[in-house]
C-alpha cells in the first residue's frame, strides 16, 4: 500500500536546526563569558527557521511526520511569537542577571522544537512525545526563577505534576484508541473510526483526549495550576506559556479532531460545552478580585482559552480556523501586555500589584495608553483585535446553531470586562502612589510593544487579510489531506 518511506531530511530541516543550535548553546555555554551571545544566536536561529519554514517543501518524513499548509502556517505564527518572547526576555534578563542565560534560551528553543514536531506529527505517539518535549523545558524554565522567587519551585512542581496527569490521560486515550482501531496514525484512525461499531468507546477515548488537552489549556476544572505557575515563572516565560504553549496545544487538538476524530467531532464539541462555559465564567469571575496583575492575567487566560474553545463546540472547519485566529490575536495581546509588565518588573516589582499602579497615567502617559489598548482588546471592545477575535468565534457558534451557548458566552464576557476596566481605573482614575521610579526603555521594549499594539489596532479595524489567510490555510489543508494530488 505504502511506498517504502524515503527519508526526506529537507522536510525536517527546521527541527534539526533548532536541535543543533539548542544543543550547541548547552555545550559551549560554560566557556563564553559574555552571555548575550545566546540571545543573538537564538534570535538569528529563529529568523532562519522562519525562512526555512517558508521554503520547506510539503511532504512526508516517514508516515509519522508531515509538513503541510496547516503545520507550516502555525509554525510561522509560533515563530513570530517566539521572536517577541526572545525580545521580551532580553529586556527582562538585563535586570535579572542571576538567571542562567544560556540554558534559558536553549530551553526555549527546545520547547519550540517540541511544538514544531507536534504540529507536524501525523500519529498519536509522536504527538505524545513531542508534547512532552514541549512541556519539559517549560517546567525547567519556571524553576529557573528560583534565584529571585523561592516559590517558583512550587509553581514548577505543580505544573509538572498536573502536566504528568495530562500525559496520563493522553496515554489512556491512546490505549483505548489503539484497542479499538489498531493504529496510531491519524488518517487511519479516521478510516477505522468511520466504519467502527465501537463509536461509544471511541468517544470515551476522545473524552480522555479532551481532558488531557484541557489540562494543557488550563480549562476549568483543570485550571488550578495556572495562576501559581504563571506567578512564579519569570515574566517572559509566563507570556510564553500563556500564548505559545497554549496556541500550539490548541492547534494540535484541532488537528487531531479534524483528522482522526472528524466523525465524532460534533459529539466531542457537545462534551466540551460545560467545560468551556465554566472556563469562561470562572476565569472571568476569579479575575475580578486579583490584585496581582499576573494572577489576573492567568485567570483571564483561562477565560480566553474558553473563548477559543467555543470554536471547538461549533465543530466545523470554519470554527476551527477562527480558533487559530483567536489564539493568534490572544498571543499578540498577551505578548504586548507582558512586554509592558517586564518594564514594570525591571523598574520596581511592586508595580505588578494593581493597586500600586495608581496614577501611572500621569508619570508614563504613553505606556498607560498602550495598556489601555491592550486591556480593551482583552475585554473585547471594538475597535480592537480582541473584539474581532470574539466576533468570529461567536459567528461560527451561531452558524452551528449553538445560539444559547453564544448567548451565555457573550453574557459572561460582560463580567470579563470588569477586571480589565479595573486596571484602567487604577491607572487613569486613582491618585498617584509610587513616584520617582526610573523607567528604562530600549529597543527590546519598543519593538515588541510597537508591533503588538499596531497589530491590535490594525486587525481591529481591518481583520480581513489575516482571517482570510487562516481560513484559506485550513481549507487548502483539508482539501489536500483528503484529495492528495
Amino acid at each position, binding site marked *: 500500500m505504502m511506498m517504502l518511506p524515503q527519508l526526506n531530511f529537507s522536510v525536517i530541516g527546521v527541527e534539526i536546526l533548532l536541535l543543533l543550535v539548542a544543543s550547541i548553546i548547552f555545550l559551549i555555554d560554560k566557556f563564553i563569558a559574555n552571555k548575550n551571545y545566546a540571545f543573538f544566536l537564538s534570535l538569528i536561529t529563529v529568523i532562519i527557521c522562519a525562512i526555512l519554514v517558508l521554503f520547506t517543501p510539503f511532504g512526508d518524513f516517514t508516515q509519522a511526520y508531515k509538513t503541510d499548509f496547516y503545520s507550516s502556517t502555525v509554525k510561522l505564527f509560533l515563530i513570530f511569537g517566539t521572536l517577541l518572547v526572545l525580545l521580551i526576555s532580553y529586556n527582562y534578563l538585563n535586570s535579572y542577571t542571576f538567571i542562567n542565560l544560556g540554558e534559558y534560551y536553549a530551553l526555549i528553543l527546545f520547547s519550540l522544537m517540541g511544538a514544531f514536531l507536534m504540529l507536524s506529527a501525523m500519529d498519536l505517539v509522536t504527538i505524545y512525545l513531542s508534547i512532552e518535549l514541549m512541556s519539559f523545558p517549560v517546567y525547567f524554565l519556571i524553576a529557573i526563577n528560583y534565584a529571585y522567587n523561592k516559590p517558583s519551585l512550587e509553581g514548577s512542581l505543580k505544573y509538572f505534576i498536573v502536566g504528568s496527569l495530562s500525559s496520563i490521560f493522553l496515554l489512556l486515550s491512546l490505549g483505548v484508541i489503539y484497542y479499538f482501531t489498531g493504529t496510531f496514525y491519524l488518517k487511519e484512525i479516521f478510516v477505522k473510526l468511520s466504519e467502527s461499531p465501537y463509536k461509544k468507546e471511541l468517544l470515551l477515548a476522545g473524552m480522555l483526549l479532551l481532558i488531557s488537552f484541557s489540562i494543557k489549556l488550563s480549562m476549568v476544572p483543570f485550571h488550578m495550576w495556572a495562576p501559581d505557575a504563571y506567578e512564579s515563572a519569570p515574566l517572559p516565560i509566563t507570556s510564553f506559556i500563556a500564548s505559545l504553549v497554549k496556541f500550539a496545544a490548541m492547534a494540535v487538538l484541532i488537528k487531531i479532531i479534524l483528522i482522526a476524530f472528524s466523525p465524532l467531532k460534533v459529539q466531542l464539541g457537545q462534551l466540551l460545552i460545560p467545560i468551556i462555559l465554566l472556563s469562561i465564567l470562572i476565569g472571568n469571575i476569579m479575575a475580578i478580585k486579583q490584585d496581582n496583575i499576573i494572577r489576573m492575567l492567568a485567570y483571564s487566560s483561562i477565560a480566553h482559552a474558553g473563548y477559543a474553545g467555543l470554536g471547538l463546540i461549533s465543530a466545523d472547519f470554519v470554527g476551527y480556523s477562527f480558533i487559530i485566529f483567536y489564539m493568534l490575536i490572544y498571543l499578540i495581546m498577551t505578548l504586548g501586555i507582558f512586554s509592558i509588565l517586564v518594564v514594570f518588573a525591571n523598574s520596581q516589582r511592586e508595580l505588578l500589584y494593581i493597586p500600586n499602579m495608581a496614577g501611572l*497615567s*500621569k508619570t508614563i*502617559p504613553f505606556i498607560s*495608553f498602550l495598556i*489601555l489598548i491592550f486591556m*480593551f482588546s482583552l475585554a473585547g*471592545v*471594538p*475597535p480592537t483585535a480582541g*473584539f474581532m477575535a470574539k*466576533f468570529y468565534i*461567536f*459567528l461560527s457558534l*451561531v*452558524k452551528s446553531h449553538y*445560539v444559547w451557548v*453564544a*448567548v451565555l458566552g*457573550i*453574557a459572561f*464576557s*460582560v463580567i470579563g*470586562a*470588569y477586571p480589565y*476596566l479595573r486596571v*484602567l*481605573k487604577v491607572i*487613569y*482614575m486613582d491618585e498617584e502612589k509610587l513616584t520617582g521610579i526610573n523607567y528604562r526603555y530600549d529597543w527590546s521594549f519598543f519593538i515588541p510593544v510597537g508591533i503588538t499594539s499596531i497589530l491590535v489596532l490594525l486587525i481591529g*479595524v*481591518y*481583520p*480581513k487579510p489575516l*482571517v*482570510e489567510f487562516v*481560513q484559506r490555510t485550513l481549507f487548502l489543508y483539508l482539501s489536500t489531506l483528503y484529495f492528495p494530488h
Partner: protein
Amino acid sequence: MTSTLPNILSWILWLPLIAIVILFFLPRRNETAIKWVSLIVILVDFILSLILLGYFDFSNPNFQFVEKRKWIDFINSYYYLGVDGISILFVPLSVLVTLLCILISWDSIKDKVKEFYLSLLVTNIAMVGVFCALDLLLFYLFWEAILIPMYLIIGVWGGPRRIYSTFKFFLYTFIGSVFMLIAIIYMYIKFGTFEYTALVGKDYPLHIEKLLFLAFAVAFAIKVPMWPVHTWLPDAHTEAPTAGSVILAGILIKMGGYGFVRFCLPLFPEATLFFAKAILVLSVVAIIYAGFACLAQDDLKRLIAYSSVSHMGFVTLGIFSLNPIGVQGAILQMINHGIVTGALFMCVGVVYDRTHSRAISYYGGLATTMPLYAAFFMVFTLASIGLPGTNGFIGEFLILLGSFLNNKVITAFAATGVIIGAAYMLWLYQRVFFQQVNPNVVGLEPLKVNELAALIPMVVLVFLIGFFPNLCLDFMRSSVDALIMNFK
C-alpha cells in the same frame, strides 16, 4: 447629487482623525495648541456637515451620499455609509455637540488636557459613525467603540463618585449591546449579509422575530434609557464633567432612539406591532415616574438627568405610535432634547466651574448676580417645558398628536408629564435664580467668551426650530413616510 460631493460622509467621519494624529505629536504642555487644533478641525468638520445638509434631496426617501467599499468581503461585510431623512440631522448635531464641548471645556479641564481632547475627538468619530453606518457590523463597531472614550471621560474627569458611575455606565451599556451582537450574527447566518438595505423586509418566523427584536431593543432601551433600565443615567450624568454630560444628553442617549427607528421598526415590523403596546406603557411610566423623581432631587445635574429620562419617554412614545406624525415628532424631539438638555448641562457646568457645587440649596438669587446667565437658563428652561415658540413645543406637540391618533388613554397619561415637567423646571428655576441672594453666589464671574460662544448657537437653534420646524421636518418627511408604509 452625490457625484458633486464624493465621499463626503467619509470626510466628515474621519476628519477628526487628522486632529488626533496632530495631537499625538504635540507636546502635552502645549495645551493652547491642543485646544486650538481640536477646535479648528471640528469646526471644519461642522462646516462640512452643514454642506452635507445643503445637498440633501428632500424628496428622496432612500439613502443618499452612499459609499460602499469592500471591508471584510469574505463574510460579506462592507464599509457602507449613507444617510437618509432619519439620520441626516444627527450628523451635524453630533459634530456641533463636540464643538460646543470643546468650547465649554476650554478652561474647566485642567488635568490631562491632551487625553481629554483625544477622547472627545474619538467620541466624535464614533458618534458620526453610528448615524452613518449601514452595515450592521460596522454599526456595531462604532456603537461599542464609543464606550472607550466615554468610560474615560466620566471616570477621569468626573465628580466625586465618578468611578462607581463610569463602571455602571460601561457595564450597563455593554451588557445591552452584546445581545445585539448575537442578533446581528444570527441575521447574518440566516441571510448571509450585514447590509441594512438588504435585511429590510426579510421575513422571520414570529417567535424568532420577537427574540431578535428583544435583543436589539434591550440594547437601545438601555441607551435611551427607558424605565426600568434607566438607573445608570442619573449617576453617569451627575458625575460626568460638563462635556461628558453634554455628549451623553446630546447624542449618546439619542443613539438608542435612533436605533429603534432605524433598526427595530423596519427590520422587525411584526414584532414591533406585538411589543408596541408594552413599550408605550413603559414610556408613560418613564415620563411620569421620572417627572416625579425630578421633583425630589436636590442636585442640579441629577434633576436634569431625570428630566432626560422623562423626555426620552416622550421620544419612545412617539416612535411606537407608529404613525408618521409621531415618528417625525420623536426624531425632532430627539434633536430638540439634544440641544436643550445639552445646553442646560452647559449652564450647570458654568456655575459648577465657579462654585464647585451642584446642590440646589447652595444657590439662590443668581438672577441678581448673573443676569445674562439667568436669561440663557430661562430660555432653555422654557424650551424644556415646551413653551410655544421654542423647539420643545413642536416636538412634544407632534408626539402627543401622533400618540393621540394611536391610543387616547396612554396619551392622556403622557400629557400629564408636560405639566409635571413645567412644575419641576419652574420650581428649579425659582429656587436657583430667584429668592434671596445666597451669599455663596455673590460676586461670581460673569459669562466668559467661550461659554457665550457655546450657549448662543443653542439659543439660536431653540428659536429657529421653534418658529420654523419645517427646517427639520422637511428632511425627514419622505423617509419617515416610507418607513411607516410598512405598518399600513
